[in-house]
């Protein structure tokens, strides 16, 4: 679930408010958006993909993280480069290569057949 809106990074563009498919955030005029309905978060990581300044962190959990969880330690996560992870993966943002250009799904059956003879794959 969504755990962090980084006050240090957020530029109040409200993109996360617009794009969240389950309406988890509330916009606050002149301020950073707030996580208003965390329990509605479906852990899809898409807000991470859309935030232009990597201000968001979505923990991989289906429920909220414990208060002392590393998933709530913004400083450590930021230092390790984990804010906005998904945006990096899919290659969005200035100077990045779209991840889809590296998509190996279509070749998977051939690749695996070559390495694992006799195993049927999808």
């Amino acid at each position, binding site marked *: 679930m969504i755990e962090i809106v980084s006050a240090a990074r957020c530029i109040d563009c409200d993109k996360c*408010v*617009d*794009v*969240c*498919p*389950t*309406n988890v955030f509330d*916009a606050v005029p002149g301020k950073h958006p707030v996580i208003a309905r965390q329990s*509605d978060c*479906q*852990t*899809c*990581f*898409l807000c991470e*993909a*859309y935030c232009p300044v990597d201000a968001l962190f979505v*923990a*991989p*959990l*289906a429920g909220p993280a414990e208060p002392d969880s590393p*998933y709530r330690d913004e400083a450590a996560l930021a230092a390790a480069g*984990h804010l906005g*992870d*998904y945006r990096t*993966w*899919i290659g*969005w943002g200035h100077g990045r290569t*779209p*991840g*889809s*250009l*590296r*998509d*190996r*799904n*279509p*070749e*998977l059956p051939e*690749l*695996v057949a070559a*390495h*694992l003879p006799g*195993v049927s*794959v*999808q």
Partner: protein
Amino acid sequence: MTTPADGRLDADVLVLGGGPAGTWAAIAAAEAGAQVVLADKGYCGTSGAAAAGGNNLWYVPPEGSARLESIERREVEGGYLTDRRWMECVLDLTWRQVDRLARWGYPYPTDATGQVRRSSLQGPEYLRLMRRQVKRAGVRILDQSPALDLVRDVDGVVSGARGVHRQRGNEAWTVRAGAVVLATGGCAFLSGALGCNPDTGDGHLMAAELGAELSGMEFSSSYGMAPAFGAQTKGRMYQFARYYHGDGTPLDVPPGFAGRHAVPRAMLSEPVFARLDLAPPQLHESLRWAQPNFFLPYDKAGIDVFRDLFEVRMVLEGTVRGTGGLALSGDGCETTVPGLYAAGDVATRELITGGRSGGGSHNGAWAISSGTIAGATAARFARRLRSSVTAAGRHGLLPGSTPAADVIRAVQDEVLPLERNLFRTGPGLRDSLARLDELWTDAVPSLDVGANPQRAREAVAMVAHARWMYRAAEARTESRAMHRRDDHPDTVPGWAHRLRTGGLDEVWVQAEGTAAGTELAVEELAS
């Protein structure tokens, strides 16, 4: 289109849902000359199963015998419930529309031999592009605007819908339209399965309130494997998995997809752990780029799936990766209600994939093709707007006292557990149905709409969905494709036909004859 002062909109075609099916439908309708409004509960571009999950497509070249072989394989796997005309049509249409995605700029990968490969679409990229094309086609998009019910004219023809803008204090909207395309996805019962929480079966409910029929609702027991700590049901990588007991000794189940049935069965009695032992080390990097959203949660949790054992669980995907949905009454994706069309997961996918969508690909191809067909036929049908329209919604729209959350939890108790929905038995289904029927008669009429009208309708939709599912599952006294009856484990040849179901106060089930007819006309749909 015109925007009257009272916040109402008029359009030729209204599309409900902005996933693949809805976006392809909106584009097709606009290309056919219609003025189109598209309303999504979430955000057109991120909402729905495909945006979050990504789609490998049933994408088979026309040359040689590949298509015929693929069709024949699926006829067997789908339990002989498919319709070859539809399969040929969908293969053809998907092939052409994927070509258009390339022209629109989807960044497809190139393989080692220099060939561009087009069978896989990564979700965020795909739906961001679809949103752009929808806008380019002149379609008006209403984001964060769940539809609540349909409206109809004096002849009973569907003539629009009503809903709320959930980021504007649930301000009401009404769109009057000459035809409506439902593309609201399947129903995963708010299980948290990747990207599926917006998909609560709302479209099925809206259609059923006007008497629409459904088909294949017994094929609704799709579960995806996910990390135990999360719910991300990206399944393809588990083909490389071996499974273990908690103490690290191997479980006596076949590895990879062959363990599809044995692994959930083992989960009934103990926690099950996995590791991708079968993945060749030379491929580890390629696999990561194949399925980034499979690896992302494990990476975040600090788990190396090739080296560490990790606990897994099954999460319900219901009719999202099941195959049941609204029955189609014609080649134009017409539902059984005039003026109402269905595309994507809200419609039955038995026509092309029978009772199992496993192995992926078919549902995504169906969304593209049925969306294209539904949009084009709805545009052709769209009639002059009638001034007098009445709302068709009957349930969960008035103030009451029962919290929607209570009803949702009660439905989930019946449909989420493996021992109820995956491993079905007659007594188990009847036991659940008794409670679900009671929810319908006692809780639904007193639902509290309160501050969240969307949630109340979702609760109603889920109760209705569960009742259709289990009624059909109870009627099919055999096991076929994904539908497993532990008390009827064999596939019975006499059962190789589809089942229709429907009704809200009284749920009914009846057999349907296999559809037959002429070749579908694809030519005019994809240019």
